């Protein structure tokens, strides 16, 4: 029954009777593809430049702190301070990655091809958001892991290493809070704008524009106003939550948050919930147009 070599047989159209994956697997496939997109993987060289410059800078900072820690044992920056110190870079990262993840799909008009499939608009939105959050945690949490490696070589005794590990772990959790707040704002803003450059500018703008409000509250002659000031900017908001979590007895009372720690946490959670709700509503609407 062997066919002669060199003959190409057109076997015609084949129907597919095999396995079809469910909602969870489709979500994971979109999430994994989006995580690659956030770093420009599988894309042109141009799409890789900016994310990898930021990854490079964060990695260098992490390596320097790790080296100092390993050589001298000195704590230059605490784990929880790292995402705050590198916060500007995080704003830049989401301003580059979020438009790449969602504005690009709006611009090319590919969304009807997604939403004519058994993929819920909310699943699309959440897969994109999860991918961005994961990307941030990988980069900034990665730097924290580097610092931990340096620390593990400098501290003596198993107990101390375990203490370091606990600190580093909390630091990564704190990074994740940054990632969720920054990511949900950035994805929401980008989902409203088709052009990637415009979306990037709008994301940076949404982080900058609230800066003066914080400054204004600091001018007011009231300590309570000072303590509430940081609520009005996403970066300082998460910073406030950090102060509450990691520095309950802050010596620097002047710029502190006073007794409002739980309020900061509540506002941060409320902001995340609001952004995610609006994001899902946005894609429900897009799927119908």
């Amino acid at each position, binding site marked *: 029954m062997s066919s002669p070599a060199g003959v190409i047989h057109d076997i015609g159209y084949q*129907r597919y009777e095999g396995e079809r994956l469910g909602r969870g697997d489709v979500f994971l496939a979109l999430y994994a593809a989006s995580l690659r997109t956030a770093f420009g993987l599988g894309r042109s060289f141009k*799409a890789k430049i900016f994310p990898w410059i930021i990854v490079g800078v964060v990695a260098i900072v992490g390596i320097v702190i790790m080296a100092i820690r390993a050589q001298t044992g000195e704590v230059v920056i605490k784990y929880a301070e790292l995402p705050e110190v590198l916060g500007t870079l995080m704003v830049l990262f989401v301003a580059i990655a979020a438009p790449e993840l969602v504005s690009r799909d709006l611009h090319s*008009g590919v969304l009807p*091809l997604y939403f*004519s499939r*058994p993929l819920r608009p909310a699943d699309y939105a959440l897969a994109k958001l999860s991918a961005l959050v994961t990307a941030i945690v990988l980069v900034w949490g990665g730097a924290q892991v580097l610092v931990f490696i340096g620390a593990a070589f400098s501290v003596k005794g198993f107990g101390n290493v375990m203490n370091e590990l606990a600190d580093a772990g909390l630091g990564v959790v704190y990074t994740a809070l940054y990632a969720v707040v920054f990511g949900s704002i950035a994805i929401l803003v980008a989902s409203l704008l088709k052009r990637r450059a415009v979306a990037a500018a709008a994301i940076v703008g949404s982080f900058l524009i609230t800066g003066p409000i914080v400054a204004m509250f600091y001018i007011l002659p009231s300590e309570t106003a000072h303590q509430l000031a940081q609520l009005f900017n996403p970066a300082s908001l998460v910073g406030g939550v950090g102060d509450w979590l990691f520095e309950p007895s802050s010596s620097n009372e002047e710029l502190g948050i006073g007794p409002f720690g739980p309020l900061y946490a509540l506002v941060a959670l409320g902001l995340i919930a609001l952004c995610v709700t609006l994001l899902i509503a946005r894609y429900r609407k897009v799927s119908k147009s």
Partner: protein
Amino acid sequence: MTLGHTLSRVTLIATESLTKTYGGRVTALSDLTVSVEPGIIGLVGANGAGKSTLIKILLGLLPPTSGRVHVLGLDPTVDPMGVRARVGYMPEHDSLPPDLSAAELVTHLGRMSGLPKTTARERASEALRHVGLYEERYRQVGGYSTGMKQRVKLAQALVHDPDLLLLDEPTNGLDPAGRDAMLALVQRIGTEFGISVVVCSHLLGEVERICDHLIAIDGGKLLRSDNVSAMTTSTDVLVVEVSEGSEELEQRLLEMRLPVTRDGHALLVPLEDDLTYDRILTAVADLDLPLHRLDQRRHRVAELFADREAAHV
């Protein structure tokens, strides 16, 4: 008792008094009742007649204002995911990211339809081969011609092996040769692949050649829904298209006592015998006009609709 139970099992699409209004003012679909069996179905109507709205309702993307609808025996208002798993959709407008290759894009969309990774890659290659894009599939879509992009859009609708394809203006932006190739491909899918197809078009003459069933809508209302075989061909016409000088040619053909009529850019001449071909070609050659197209078309279907459509224009 649902609509699906009252109809036979072979019903592909059934609607009953389907109505869609936007904000209570704009009526996109009005009291539309149709029932079609598997095969190739032409959905014909002018731009804005409600074709795209109907497709979105069939996909479960838009809820109808009133009335009932069934696709493949499923109700898209109740089980939109079930419908979408078995339907392939090719949108009218540009919908391809330019910086991906056709193979990557179709593979990714196959996975979005629930195909496992390896299967998605294999079926994407196969789907692209079936639409005639095998060699070029690793090139970026941004560099493709309009015809190639239309084929990629068709391939992504096929990748997950649907039971029904919804094609919204698949010949949009194509030249006459490209249009013929696309229609031949659609016909092959409907006959050889065993997949039912709904082809939307604002050009009746185009889809009537390949369809088993025609649905014509205008202003959201049903004009006519019938099997093409029921609208039997009586005489054939020749369609003549020239890039320029249609008026001159029309004048010349009338002088030659050929009863020519106009249909947009094209001229229609009843085919009496083989000599008709020669006489038209001679006229075109005499006038030195660039001939775009000269082919045969069934005649009566167009006429059946023309009278009704004219009343609405």
